[in-house]
């Protein structure tokens, strides 16, 4: 790859009709304070932040201080359908989010199991199909199942977000081979690893697999120092992407010295 091409690929990418520089998508929940959230998002350099909708009490400002902070960041907002357990619930939530947040982007989450928050693939595909027909840009949260990814692509998803592992678990990539299979099968789709990332090295690993981005929340928000961790993830995602673009060396089953062997003073040969 020419240096010029590499630079372009490293600097900018496209998702959902937007051109971005950052490949880190960040959540807005679980921070110690709104100010800390704001600082962490800024430090991450993320250009997409996930948000949600919940019941609003009468007499309060809709969204309150939180929404004012997010708006002031002037980055792209990705509303989610967290907490939905059916296609119908997710579709209604997406329609409400489109009106409130003034975006056709939706992070589609339809949970199939309350214990491990595993997405329901059947309801997710059903909801995705309807939402795409209604003009949404769907970012579906799914497992690392190749066939589910295929079904989502079949109904028109241009973006797929397989999990690394369970939401909030911090376990990293449970099945990197599965993630790689999805990457190889769908080179034309935008693929984001969503959920389960716990450490910066997990994000790097996802990017080294050729994923287009990483979406995470808990790993930053629950760190001892979320702002510093946001910076760590920024670098980790960049490092992983650069590594992928550079083309990693072939793994070998044997040792091979890197220092030249010619001219080595092998004292032991004369003993």
């Amino acid at each position: 790859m020419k240096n010029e091409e590499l630079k372009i690929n490293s600097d900018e990418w496209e998702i959902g009709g937007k051109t971005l520089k950052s490949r880190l998508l960040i959540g807005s929940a679980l921070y110690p304070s709104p100010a800390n959230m704001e600082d962490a998002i800024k430090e991450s350099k993320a250009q997409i932040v996930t948000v949600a909708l919940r019941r609003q009490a009468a007499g309060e400002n809709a969204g309150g201080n939180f929404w004012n902070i997010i708006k002031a960041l002037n980055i792209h907002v990705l509303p989610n359908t967290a907490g939905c357990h059916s296609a119908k619930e997710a579709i209604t939530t997406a329609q409400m989010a489109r009106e409130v947040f003034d975006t056709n982007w939706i992070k589609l989450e339809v949970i199939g199991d309350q214990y491990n928050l595993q997405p329901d693939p059947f309801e997710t595909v059903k909801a995705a199909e309807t939402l795409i027909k209604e003009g949404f840009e769907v970012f579906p949260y799914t497992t690392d199942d190749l066939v589910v990814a295929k079904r989502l692509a079949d109904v028109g998803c241009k973006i797929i977000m397989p999990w690394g592992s369970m939401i909030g678990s911090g376990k990293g990539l449970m099945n990197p081979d599965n993630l790689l299979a999805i990457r190889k099968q769908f080179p034309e789709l935008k693929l984001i690893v969503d959920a389960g990332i716990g450490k910066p090295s997990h994000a790097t690993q996802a990017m080294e697999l050729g994923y287009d981005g990483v979406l995470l929340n808990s790993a930053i928000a629950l760190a001892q120092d979320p702002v510093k961790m946001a910076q760590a993830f920024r670098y980790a995602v960049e490092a992983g992407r650069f590594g992928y673009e550079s083309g990693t060396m072939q793994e070998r089953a044997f040792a091979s010295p890197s220092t030249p062997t010619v001219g080595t003073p092998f004292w032991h040969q004369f003993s």
Partner: protein
Amino acid sequence: MIKVSVNGEIKEIKEGLNVHQLIEALEYKTKGFAVAINTTFVSIKTYETTIINDGDSIEILAPVQGG
């Protein structure tokens, strides 16, 4: 008067209110929220023409933190 559920709370309201009037009656003062009735989205464009019925379940949602 009719009984409806608003965000999970049972409330008594006047019969025949539309969504716009309901929001005023409940003292939702600012914009920036969205409404669903019986799990169906109600667009802001149809607030005036959507009448609240006895037993309706109304959800009024606003932005919060999310992952």
